[in-house]
């Protein structure tokens, strides 16, 4: 560490911190002997995969650890105070006063029944003594909302959280965190739930506020792209232990630990994939023409329903063996498109043709037969497996529903499990025994059990850690070559789209704004919107630097990673 560089005292000092997990966990300590410091005006990134204990550290700083999880040794000092020695009153003063925290999911961190202005107000009233005059508080709320870049603060402070977008909610959270000029801001995966463009804006906002006020920032993330964009220093965690720490450029350019290197390599670099589909047949396998869908959301009794345009004349074609990426921000209608093709959501108008046959007509048994050719892998591997169904059954049920005998279907399921990188014994276990990446492999096996010709991957890797993402992507790429699958890859992450797709469609508010081969869209985007999306890729500046030899290592990383899960 570099204590000597700055004379000012650290805003956060963590020294030899160990946190014990309750007995029966997968390891005795959530965090073991972790030490680091954050100085004023410094951004320290805590990086690690899920389960590495990074959130535990943040929670320990503000004494927010769940019951049964205790600090067993080490000290935490926040602006000269040890939070564990504070009484209730002192702790309340510290939280939201000198040390503020923002969380990953802004919707669940805001009170749904209170106007956001009131919630910011509460932060000020709870902390400032003597209590300031109401007029002054209101003015301060307005200033804060303006500072975090929210448009029209007068109107916005009267809104309820559900009326705001994800990015706006996170801005409100930041406004609340900033309300009492904290010396330390803890941000626990603040942008993971947001899409790339919003992510960039929020990171930039945090960085600007940090510079303006000279506060220390502890940013927790799993994405080295984010680290490259904002961090001064990095602490890399694995299984609760510090693997490496140092200045951001040192760690990124010259990682000492093999694990750090793996994590950096796993960041999708938006390098164009070099797998090109050879299109044999000229006629498309799947054809979508002029798809139209509007969602009507009821508001009040007297207000007219809000209309959300999810698809406005979408047309696309997909050939055998081809991968088409559909990219766009949240709310652009990309998931609805996938669901409409699967007939999980009924379109208002338009045609879907599969191998020449109309996919919109069939009902009941005919629809069941038609669906066999198309399969979907959903985003959340935790929600898409029945918790009470064994993994083998989950995979075998599909073929069994179409008449395959149980024994045969189970044998095939075991084979598929091996194919996606799990063991045969996985068939007899329940989903909760697997990690997120393993579950997504099971979902892929389940979709492939029916030998579909089209696979729709709806944000299939978005919920996974970066390193696991790379492995699952590699698996998908292999499988599509092997099975000549046509794939629609729905994602908000352009880096991933670049790596896997032959062609890309960019969606904005239900309309296709740009379409072309991956190379065309990424190297010469025609639309400003596409350029915005590309610029927002985290870590782009860093990873695109000449001399950053990511490619060779990157591919090696994927290949060596497949067996690791």
């Amino acid at each position, binding site marked *: 560490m570099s204590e000597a560089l700055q004379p000012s005292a650290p805003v956060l000092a963590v020294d030899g911190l160990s946190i014990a997990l309750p007995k029966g966990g997968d390891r005795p300590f959530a965090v073991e002997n972790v030490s680091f410091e954050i100085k004023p005006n410094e951004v320290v990134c805590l990086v690690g995969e899920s389960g590495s204990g990074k959130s535990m550290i943040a929670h320990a700083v503000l004494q927010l650890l769940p019951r049964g999880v205790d600090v067993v040794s080490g000290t935490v000092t926040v602006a000269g105070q040890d939070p564990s020695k504070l009484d209730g009153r002192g702790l309340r003063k510290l939280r939201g006063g000198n040390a503020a925290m923002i969380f990953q999911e802004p919707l669940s961190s805001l009170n749904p029944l209170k106007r956001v202005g009131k919630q910011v107000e509460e932060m000020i009233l709870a902390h400032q003594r003597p209590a300031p005059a109401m007029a002054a508080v209101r003015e301060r709320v307005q200033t804060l909302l303006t500072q975090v870049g929210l448009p029209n603060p007068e109107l916005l402070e009267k809104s309820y959280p559900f009326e705001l977008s994800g990015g706006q909610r996170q801005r409100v959270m930041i406004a609340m965190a900033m309300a009492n000029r904290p010396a330390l801001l803890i941000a626990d995966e603040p942008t993971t739930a947001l899409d790339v463009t919003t992510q960039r804006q929020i990171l930039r906002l945090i960085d600007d506020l940090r510079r303006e006020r000279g506060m220390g920032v502890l940013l927790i993330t799993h994405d080295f792209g984010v680290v490259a964009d904002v961090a001064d220093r990095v602490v890399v965690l694995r299984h609760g232990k510090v693997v490496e720490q140092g200045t951001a450029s040192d760690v990124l350019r010259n990682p000492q630990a093999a694990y750090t290197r793996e994590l950096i390599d796993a960041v999708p670099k938006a390098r164009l994939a070099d797998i090109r589909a050879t299109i044999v047949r000229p006629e498309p396998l799947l054809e979508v023409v002029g798809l139209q869908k509007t969602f009507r959301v009821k508001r009040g009794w007297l207000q007219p329903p809000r209309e959300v345009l999810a698809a406005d004349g979408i047309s696309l074609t997909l050939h055998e063996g081809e991968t088409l990426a559909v990219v766009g921000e949240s709310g652009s209608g990309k998931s609805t498109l996938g669901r409409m093709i699967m007939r999980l959501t009924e379109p208002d108008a338009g045609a879907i043709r599969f191998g020449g046959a109309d996919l919109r007509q069939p009902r009941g048994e005919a629809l*069941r037969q038609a669906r*066999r050719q198309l399969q979907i892998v*959903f*985003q959340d591997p935790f929600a898409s497996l029945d918790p009470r169904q064994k993994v083998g059954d989950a995979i075998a*049920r599909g073929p069994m*529903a179409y008449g395959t005998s149980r024994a045969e279907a189970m044998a095939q399921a075991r084979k598929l499990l091996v194919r996606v990188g799990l063991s045969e014994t996985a068939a007899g276990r329940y989903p909760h025994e697997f990690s997120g990446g393993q579950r997504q492999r099971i979902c892929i096996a389940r979709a492939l059990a029916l030998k579909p010709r089209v696979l729709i991957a709806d944000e299939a890797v978005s919920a996974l850690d970066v390193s696991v993402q790379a492995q699952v992507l590699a698996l998908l790429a292999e499988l599509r070559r092997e099975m000549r699958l046509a794939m629609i890859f729905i994602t908000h992450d352009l880096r991933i789209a670049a790596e896997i797709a032959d062609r890309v469609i960019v969606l904005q508010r239900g309309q296709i704004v740009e379409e072309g081969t991956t190379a065309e869209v990424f190297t010469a985007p025609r639309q400003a919107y596409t350029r915005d999306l590309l610029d927002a890729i985290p870590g782009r500046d860093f990873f695109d630097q000449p001399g950053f030899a990511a490619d060779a290592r990157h591919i090696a990383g994927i290949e060596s990673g497949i067996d690791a899960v």
Partner: protein
Amino acid sequence: METVRAFLRHPSGMIGLVLLLVVVVVAIIAPMVFPVSPWEMVGAPFTPPGEDGLWLGGDTLGRDVAAGVAYGARVSLLIGIASALAAMAIGVVIGAISGYFGGKVDLVLMRMTELFQTIPAFVLAILLVATFNPSLLTIILTIGAVSWPPLARLTRAEFLRLRHREFVEAALCQGERTWRIVLGHILPNAISPILVVTSLTVATAILLESALSFMGLGDPNLMSWGFMIGAGRTVIRNAWWMSVFPGLAILLTVLAINLFGEGLSDVLNPRVSRRRS
């Protein structure tokens, strides 16, 4: 297995289970301990507890109160459990259809459910029992018919929650048939709260049956707690034991079932059980 183990560690749930087992044992061994029918006059009328070999005294006609309480446990438990199961069968079917298919089906079924909910259950039960001949079967069906609406509502809510979960949609895309999706995926994931409410319905069913018997609307051939209280009510000032002992039996049984049901709810609801650990 884990659920069972967690339940064994749940203090109030275990108290409920033990009490309930005591009632069940009493119901089972009643004919062995009291070989004479509870309707038989075995002592002098108004025998106080402990005299003439009648532990809990005799009633106005000299029938053994203890025998009545023991035989009453059989009736109460049988009617309680059978009618709760009947209510569950009706409620789950209606709730499942309503929640899964939605739309007009849901509209019609839910208005029907509301109709049942707006009529006071007890009044409807009296009406039904009075219309049909009171027998074990009609009483069970009657109590079942007035107790299903909460179960239907709960099942519908659970189905609505699970209907669009990704694993259900995945099963749909896998080509599974509707009945398999409902029975194999949605119901097993909705069953915990349904079981909890059903177990609590047993308690209300026992109370309903007692109330019906108290009013003289029970099966005249069955010795029931409610009937005993009803018969002893007029003389409660000089012979308290005739109503107090069956009353205590109802209290303990209902309490036991409620404790058991709540224990079950805590154990089956992972969020609550995590808080306990």
